[in-house]
């Protein structure tokens, strides 16, 4: 069973980028005309040559999404458990060198936060922490999952990468999915943005989805952080990663997220701008690559953007999110990981979804099956 590192090592970043930029209108038209698309078609669809075909891509993306997912959209809520972190990441508000008050939620605080989310209707929860193995290591996560398991049908985490046996332990406790973004697949840029901490180990992070697949996780969420490097190359490598995993760990579901670099305390300006139009192109390209892939959208994006993207391919979305530990109830003013753009209430947001003819799905899993 090969690991993705072997696959990635066969590629060269600059050559890949060049091949994307060399795609022509004919390549785009060919890709648009096919029923099943491969990674060369994906390159064409994310290339500059595809820009004039964006509307056609959007139309097809909408049709494919409706065919596979119907007129539904799933809701989830992130809950930050801790902002403690032993990494330096140049783009993140939780970075170790950032002098902010640190806190990790206690059991009572966790339950206060979850009570708020339950009152809003959420049944799918995403637990988020910084990377601090001693305070929010696997035992803390195991305890947190046990604490809230009866309240939520679907528990997902976005935390530091763990070993396979640690994932197996959390899955046995009711963990459904893990989100782990490579941030960038450019090795040198990765090193520059992660100079210190366990996260600076590019290969360990790259191998995380393989460990998750072996551990038998239900769902793996992938993504890059757009703005660190050329988004076209990073999204190609993300697609390559997804395809490798899908073929190897075939019992696992996959989701894709599209975080763009957002402002935060002491923040980094994006090296490469990814416009709204670029993001629409990328989301549609992923839908055209795979009609079953879950595409997820956070509150990083603006109201206008989110109002339109829910009809273009996105299948799960958050609302009213807080990116600070205790941000819903316990300590609303603690420092955020990044600023959100869409601050509408859950009620207001779901009303908008319904006005577009979309069924709001709160529950789509049963954790008692595990």
């Amino acid at each position, binding site marked *: 069973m090969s690991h993705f590192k072997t696959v990635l090592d066969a590629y060269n970043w600059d050559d890949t980028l060049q091949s994307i930029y060399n795609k022509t209108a004919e390549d785009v*038209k*060919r890709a*648009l*005309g*096919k*029923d*099943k698309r491969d990674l*060369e078609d994906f390159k064409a669809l994310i290339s500059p040559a595809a820009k004039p*075909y*964006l*509307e*056609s891509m*959007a*139309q*097809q993306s*909408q*049709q494919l999404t409706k065919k596979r997912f119907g007129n539904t959209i799933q809701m989830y809520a992130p809950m930050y458990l801790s902002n403690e972190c032993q990494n330096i990441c140049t783009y993140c508000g939780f970075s170790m060198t950032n002098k902010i008050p640190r806190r990790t939620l206690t059991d009572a605080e966790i339950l206060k936060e979850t009570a708020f989310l339950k009152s809003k209707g959420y049944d799918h929860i995403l637990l988020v922490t910084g990377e601090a193995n001693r305070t929010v290591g696997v035992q803390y996560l195991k305890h947190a999952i046990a604490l809230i398991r009866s309240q939520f049908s679907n528990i997902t985490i976005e935390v530091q990468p763990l070993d396979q046996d640690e994932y197996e332990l959390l899955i046995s406790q009711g963990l459904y999915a893990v989100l782990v973004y490579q941030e960038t697949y450019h090795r040198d840029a990765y090193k520059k943005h992660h100079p210190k901490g366990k996260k600076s180990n590019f290969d360990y992070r790259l191998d995380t989805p393989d460990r998750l697949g072996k551990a038998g996780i239900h769902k793996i969420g992938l993504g890059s952080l757009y703005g660190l490097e050329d988004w076209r190359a990073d999204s190609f490598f993300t697609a390559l990663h997804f395809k490798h995993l*899908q*073929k*190897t760990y*075939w019992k696992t579901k996959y989701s894709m997220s599209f975080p763009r670099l957002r402002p935060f305390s002491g923040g980094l300006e994006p090296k490469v701008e990814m416009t*709204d*139009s670029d993001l*629409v192109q990328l989301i549609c390209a992923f839908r055209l690559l795979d009609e079953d892939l879950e595409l997820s959208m956070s509150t990083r994006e603006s109201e*206008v*953007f989110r109002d*339109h993207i829910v*009809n*273009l391919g996105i299948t799960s979305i958050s609302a009213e999110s807080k990116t600070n530990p205790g941000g819903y109830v316990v300590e609303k003013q603690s420092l955020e990981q990044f600023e959100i753009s869409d601050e509408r209430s859950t009620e207001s947001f779901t009303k908008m979804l319904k006005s577009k003819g979309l069924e709001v799905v709160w529950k789509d899993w049963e954790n008692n099956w595990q």
Partner: protein
Amino acid sequence: MKTDNLTIADKTFQSRLFTGTGKFSNSKIMRDAIRASESELVTVALKRVNATDLGDDILTHLNHPSIHLLPNTSGVRTAEEAVFAAQLSREALHTNWVKLEIHPDPKYLLPDPIETLKAAEMLVKAGFVVMPYIHADPVLCKRLEDVGVQCVMPLGAPIGSNKGLKTLDFLEIIIAQSNVPVIVDAGIGSPSHAAQAMELGADAVLVNTAIAVSQNPIAMGTAFKLAVEAGRLAYNAKLAPPKNTAEASSPLTSFLNL
């Protein structure tokens, strides 16, 4: 004109056409048809040959340096019988390759998925290169891959039916998600069926009845050779799209103010 090579386990094949040995009117015609097809992997039913007899008619005619024998377990009904048959063939024919066929149903010869998976796991552990003949079941293909088979051989239609790729939709899924070579087996009745399977992205096809029962098996062997090469070339050259680009009816991207 040769296309790209196919590697299975430790062997590389220039031809992506695999053939069978049943139903020919005599062994000489069988030999000539196989040579005309340029097939390098030829399956032979263990139940039909006398492996201990150096003068066995079928084996004698297949004795050629470019031909690799692939014994099959046709006739067995359980995993245990299949493992026993494979062990016999390894001893008699000096090959650890085996085409795993388990069909308890004598009428349609449809493969038993449960016994096949069981046998595949046992044979892989015993060091065999296992090539399982199966229904076009994408989940079974992944399960077989997980236990370590070297390829999968889904059927296009019931064996000997010459009906072509009746399982097309499932073959597409199998090809899209397989990490091992996919060889379409059974049902291929004409060169156009073989070309279609190769255009679809199959790594090889296995043909027997269509060649053996044609009026001119030698010419048909050549026809299949050309069809498989054409299909593979077409697959590598990327087929032109079958439909036009979708036309926008009401703009979905106008909010971007492009």
